[in-house]
């Protein structure tokens, strides 16, 4: 727990530098805060008035997360190298877990704050459908955590701020846009939906997830924007007998696949993996 609460590095990243930027350029920061705040309230008011579907709310939230999350992590280690402060830091009595938590914890805390700010949009859109709302929340935070974690690791590995930022944004373009486009081109423009319709039990879902790794559908299934798109099918949880049909089969397929939760957990798993790489890197490279 010491690594978390009594960590000067975490305190510096979360409070130290930020506090003084406000003091030194108050007009700039107040103007930026006011502008962002107004835009936020406007978006919130629109959400209240028009009650967009959970897919639209999650799309919007993910778009914000894709833009903002890299900025929360991209320079945490690279600035230490660029400004030549890492040696002084490495020689202190801070342990590898403390240094890791100081950086990764700061990035994750920022992502958590952003997720909380975006949460009202998800809750407003998903009223009455706790499954979809919670799944959307997990997907949003998971994706943010993955970006932040990857950002911290790349920042450590690449040692250059600009390179890290470029890699993070370019990587997203590839994963979220180009790879799915390639899949669609090769798959003659059809989304891999049939696979979901065939799932009628948790066992089926388990095998479907394994199959999609090999047939390439995973590229589509783990795309958070596609996750959001399918989330709309889960708006109505009721499965009355008169509703049974193709749509019911498809919805239950999504349900058995734990749609949203599985992807969210996968993102968090990958985030943990990159966090592990970073921790190991600090331990070895900094001889901690």
């Amino acid at each position, binding site marked *: 727990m010491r690594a978390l609460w009594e960590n*000067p590095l975490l305190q*510096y990243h979360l409070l*130290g530098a930020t506090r*003084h930027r406000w003091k030194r350029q108050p007009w700039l920061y107040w103007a930026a805060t006011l502008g962002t705040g107004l835009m936020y309230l406007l978006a919130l008011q629109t959400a209240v008035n028009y009650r967009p579907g959970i897919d639209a709310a999650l799309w919007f939230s993910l778009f914000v997360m894709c833009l903002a999350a890299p900025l929360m992590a991209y320079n945490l280690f690279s600035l230490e190298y660029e400004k030549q*402060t890492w040696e*002084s830091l490495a020689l202190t*009595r*801070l342990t590898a877990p403390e240094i890791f938590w100081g950086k990764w914890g700061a990035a994750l805390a920022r992502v958590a704050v952003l997720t909380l700010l975006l949460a009202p949009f998800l809750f407003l859109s998903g009223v009455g459908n706790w499954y979809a709302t919670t799944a959307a929340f997990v997907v949003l935070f998971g994706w943010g955590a993955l970006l932040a974690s990857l950002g911290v690791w790349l920042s450590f590995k690449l040692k250059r701020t600009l390179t890290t930022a470029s890699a993070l944004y370019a990587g997203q373009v590839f994963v979220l846009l180009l790879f799915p486009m390639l899949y669609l081109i090769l798959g003659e423009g059809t989304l891999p939906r049939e696979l979901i319709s065939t799932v009628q039990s948790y066992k089926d879902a388990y095998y479907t997830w394994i199959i999609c790794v090999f047939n390439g559908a995973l590229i589509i299934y783990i795309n958070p924007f596609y996750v959001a798109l399918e989330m709309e099918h889960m708006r109505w949880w009721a499965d009355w007998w008169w509703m049974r049909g193709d749509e019911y089969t498809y919805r239950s397929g999504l349900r058995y696949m734990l749609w949203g939760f599985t992807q969210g957990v996968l993102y968090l798993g990958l985030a943990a993996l990159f966090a592990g790489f970073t921790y190991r890197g600090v331990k070895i490279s900094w001889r*901690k």
Partner: protein
Amino acid sequence: MLDVQGLRKEYGELVAVRDIYFQLHPGDVFGFIGPNGAGKTTTIKMLATLLEPTAGTATLNGIDIVRHPEEVRPLLGYMPDFFGLYEGITVTEYLEFFAAAYRIPKSQRAAIIENVLELTDLTVKKDAYVETLSRGMQQRLCLAKSLVHDPILLLLDEPASGLDPRARIEIKELIRELGAMGKIVLVSSHILPELADFCNKIGIIEKGELLVWGAVDEIIVQLQASRVLEIRLLGEPEPLIQRLERESHVHGVEARDGSLYVHFAGGLEEQADLLAALIRDGFRIAAFREESLDLEDVFMQITRGEVS
């Protein structure tokens, strides 16, 4: 005590540091001299536990720096040649950050920071933002940061580089003071006059090899196998030159700028005998002195101007 035992660093085929040995005691201010690329920074980084040596080791107060870097780190303060500071915080906050990182109890931090600020003459700047300090003050702040945990060994890599003359003098004074406080100070530089003033020991490194190390005076004596005597004579020099050339310890005589420069291989006894004999022979000698070597002469005699 710092005991360096055969420290070696290889990068593939390149040997950056070649089996270095030396020992330093509390209060020693050790000038680590060498041209750029000689291996000074690599040696310092190995001593600072930032680089793992290929072979050899060093102990600080008996603790092995290779096997127990975590135990050695609290005992050393390191100031790199190129350094940066965390921006957006004040001088006091910067030092508080490092005090916390060195696990100094909260109750003691304020007093320690005050002392360190006083020692480095930064008290007036304690509320200034780090990035607003001049280069010299940032250098002193970096040194202050290296002192908050009261280390016994200070590794200062080119501490005066890029400083104006006043800041150089101030940093020299500070290093002298740290030596007087009983700390082992290892300070590297390639500017000799910088070190000549305040180091009691020096080591000259070239191409990764420590060519010589020890007390400054001892090294000079070692190198003065053939000393140069300057004789200023009233009257014609020719008879004196002929007289000197008959002396067995004299290897050569040059006349320039109104003086004679005698390359003399004897010791102090022979030197005194020679002076007495010349006066006895009726030469009117106005000045007779040994031309002493300084650190620059030592450096030029030992090194060949090669880098590893």
